[in-house]
């Protein structure tokens, strides 16, 4: 496991790289733009895929996001990490897109439940089971709580960064996180599976 300082250094290095890239983009540097795009495409695609299964919509949201990045790179004032700035744009593009398109099944509803054979692949199947358990839990959360958890655990954003992305107070982020965790504690054991049983004996927080 990485120490806190390692993680902090990694984050700082990544941001320094992205700040340089964004400055270059502001001057019309295509290669820098492509680098930024390719760095963010996979995590953003996975984040958006939790809200829609439509590949075309996922790509559309990402391209709308980077269309704005291309045009507004010069307006970035550096009061957040570049990654957080981009995620914030993507979040707004995603909300806009999901509002203007007919709802579609989530990826979670489509690609799950194809059970893996056990035995030799037990480690892989445990991993999948854990991922599935989490996905089911997240599906039970109200959208804001779910997005808060995804931004924190999937995209690694801090409390302050999530507040900036979702345009709310840090107190709101804390409250959403708090209620999300309470609800997951209450609902997840009912979902079955080994992972759920493992936490079934845990106490409720007092």
């Amino acid at each position, binding site marked *: 496991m990485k120490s806190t300082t390692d993680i902090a250094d990694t984050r700082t290095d990544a941001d320094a790289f992205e700040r340089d890239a964004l400055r270059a983009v502001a001057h019309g540097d295509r290669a820098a733009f492509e680098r930024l795009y390719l760095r963010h495409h996979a995590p953003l*695609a996975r984040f958006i895929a939790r809200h829609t299964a439509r590949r075309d919509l996922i790509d559309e949201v990402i391209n709308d996001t980077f269309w704005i990045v291309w045009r507004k790179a010069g307006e970035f004032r550096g009061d957040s990490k570049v990654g957080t700035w981009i995620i914030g744009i993507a979040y707004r593009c995603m909300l806009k897109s999901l509002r203007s398109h007919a709802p579609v099944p989530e990826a979670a509803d489509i690609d799950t439940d194809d059970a893996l054979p056990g035995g030799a692949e037990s480690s892989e199947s445990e*991993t999948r089971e854990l*991922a599935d358990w989490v996905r089911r839990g997240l599906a039970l959360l109200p959208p804001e709580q779910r997005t808060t958890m995804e931004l924190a655990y999937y995209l690694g*954003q801090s409390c302050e960064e999530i507040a900036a992305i979702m345009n709310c107070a840090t107190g709101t982020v804390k409250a959403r*996180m708090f209620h999300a965790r309470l609800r997951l*504690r209450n609902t997840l054991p009912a979902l079955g599976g080994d992972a759920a049983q493992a936490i079934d004996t845990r106490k409720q927080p007092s």
Partner: protein
Amino acid sequence: MTPATPLTHRETWELIPWVVNGTATPNERQDVERHLRDCADCRDEYALQMQFHAGMNAGGDVEHDAQPSLRRLLARIDTPEEQALSADAAPPARARWPQWLAAAVVVQAIGLALLGGAQLKQAGAPDAGYRTLTNAPAASAAAIRLVPSPQLSLTELSQLLAAQQLRVVEANADATILGVAPTHEAADVDAIVARLRATPGVLLAEPAAGAAHAPR
């Protein structure tokens, strides 16, 4: 920096996610670690959140080639502004909420028509159900808060409600969150909630008591 006073249980609980995702400050992390040494409950919570963090980052890979869509974006960037604007003009926003509000009202109508007099008495007035859908209800008779999946068709929703012997008594402004009540008084709300949670197409089901009204 002077050593902070030991964290309370609640403070620790609030900091745990940020320690787990690596965004807590070194001081916060130290304080949390100190508390965890002496508190089994918070250690449990820490372990659970670690597990959750791992689960969100495991599996579910979206194999998705970025290159084709990058090429489309670059082509769009190369398109002169005016053309791009007309090509990108968003289709008129097709809001799904009015459709949902309509659906909830229709479900309500079906419910009232099927159930007849007994339920009307319970609701207080013959048109109570309709009123609570359009005006803020003064006192909610909802026993369960239900968020159906937006993918659920009206027919599926009404079948789902009928199967659990439920009727819609209120809805939030955009009708994404429904307040429902059992059609017979002796119903076991917890059991119904458990069944609803196991039903495909139900995003959320919880007892309404203490949950107050739908957010927003």
